[in-house]
């Protein structure tokens, strides 16, 4: 975890600096007319966060390197997975919004099941991906009075 702590600490410290000097001044209007300046609390918290992130980096840098190679928690295959699943989730979101739940959900369900090896059980794949979205849609609609898109 040493290396990943150093990288994540540096990333969070950079994010903190960006937030303090760019995002907060642009996104929070300074106002002294009533009570305290709205920037005070976010700035205080972000300065603290940046300091702790830098402290994490310094503490980890001072630690001796582990004797055996530390593979770290995120390997290329993990990055590949999270990028692919993020793209899938984003596409599902767009499909929900444009096509509606009853069209997008069976497709999303079938794709996820296929990727997890359900092509070996085609009947179950078809039944689950057709029936479960219908059941969810109608239980939300009838029981909880929530109309899914």
């Amino acid at each position, binding site marked *: 975890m040493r290396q990943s702590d150093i990288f994540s600490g540096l990333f969070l410290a950079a994010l903190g600096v960006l937030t303090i000097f760019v995002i907060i001044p642009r996104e929070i209007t300074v106002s002294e007319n009533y009570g305290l300046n709205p920037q005070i*609390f976010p700035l205080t918290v972000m300065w603290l966060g940046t300091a702790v992130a830098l402290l994490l980096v310094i503490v980890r840098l001072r630690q001796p390197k582990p004797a055996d190679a530390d593979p770290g928690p995120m390997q290329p295959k993990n990055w590949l997975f999270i990028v692919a699943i993020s793209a899938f989730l984003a596409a599902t979101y767009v499909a929900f919004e444009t096509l509606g739940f009853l069209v997008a959900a069976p497709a999303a369900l079938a794709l996820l099941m296929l990727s997890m*090896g359900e092509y070996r059980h085609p009947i179950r794949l078809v039944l689950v991906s057709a029936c479960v979205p219908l059941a969810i849609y109608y239980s939300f609609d009838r029981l*909880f009075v929530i109309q899914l898109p």
Partner: protein
Amino acid sequence: MHDLLAGLMETLTLVNIAFIIFGVATGIIVGAIPGLNGPMAIAVALPLTYYLSPLAALAFLIGISKGSMFGGSISAILINTPGTPEAAPTAFDGYPLTQQGKGLKALKMSLFSSAIGATAGDLILFFTAAPAAILALMMGPAEMTAVLLFSFTIIAGLAGKSPMRGCLAAIFGVFLSVVGLDPESTLPRLTFGSVQLQDGIPLIPLTIGLLALSEILLQIEDHLMRGDASGRRNDIFSKDAPRENRTVTRADWRSCARTIWRSSLIGIGIGALPGVGAVVAGFLGYASAKRNSPNGDKFGTGQLEGVAATEAANNAVTGSALIPLLAIGIPGNLTATILIGAFLIHGVQPGPLIFKEHGALVYGLFGAMALADLFTLTLGAVGLRLFSLVLNVPNAVLYPVIVLLCMAGAYSSDNSMFGVAIALIFAVLGYLMRKLDFSFATFLIGFALGRQFELFFRQSLILFRDSPAQLLHHPIAIAFVLLTIVSLWRIGRKKPAAGAQAEPSPSFAGAENVQ
């Protein structure tokens, strides 16, 4: 007295009893499924309670919480995969017992010790929450700022292998809570022109994404990388097994009784501390039993005491964790954090005034908790065989269906796709946090308490900026500031656990490797 009777009578209506039973059954099933847990199920169920009465909603959610705490032990004992993080130490001795053909005995001991621990925690809550609330009424903005500050350090200090990462997660959680309108000037802050963000980042979709969806992403990844590992079955109900392997004997009770009470007390103490939670309680209960048992050196090889210790401790937390929530409005654990949402959507602000303004609801909640304990015991006993069948649903079906349910749940929080977007963003963030071992629990608690903390902090600044010496007249605040300093000093001195260097993935998906 009137509130007490009114609350208890309302609990005993048929509808509320039905919701408690439904909640407990749901909780046991959810808890038994590896990767799912109580807070996750409560987060998904929370939007569904909009249309229920406040007591029915809380009773349902409490039922899920109680049921899931026991349910987590089912998969821990049967397939060495804790259904919930709290049940991780249960697997240490529970699974070896299953391998020895004593799985049913272990499940029964888990059920009985869960019920005893949960009842003990509830009794302490019933008798101490109201007096604690009276004390809390004497606390002003300075005291509350100091208490919240101290809570953050306690939460961060016990969040995981690295307290510093826990602190960072809590700080960024607090920071995100400032998104929305400024509480004094009502000027928009960090909304990037979005009208929907003016109400702040919604808690429910954030919780669904961070807790439920991110865990499912890890489970899917684990499934894809390891291949399908389902299909393992343990015939623990075989009639051929000797009777003493299937039942808890009097000798077992004698050897475990002291352990159960000790662990219950540990669970109660841990639960009453804001932000510590059932995971720590389970491990402490197990460690304490191992240290005090004459068979301590045999722990890990199938000792019934190990199962009893963990389950009594983690179940005792469910009741006592509500003490800080009801007394001073600070959630004792993740479940209590999500329960704040349930209180708020029904127009109830948890905190010292709750006994005065919503006394009947609080006593009704106490009644619901007692009933939930009773139903956990009876449903657990009746349904042991049935609940364990859920484990046989293939992961390739289960996980995609849960993803769909999460998206539907996030949508229903405000009937818009904005909630779904928030859930998806925080699902990816939650995945990265789990992988990099940044505590999502401290992040969530920081986010949930951030607004309240800011308000007290700003009130204190306004009160004392002209005369800081006035602070010396607030001994409770000074005491908590000193405690905060001591806590920070201890966090600074604490070295990261050895496992933090060696363990490639801190995700709970790999919890089957707990031994």
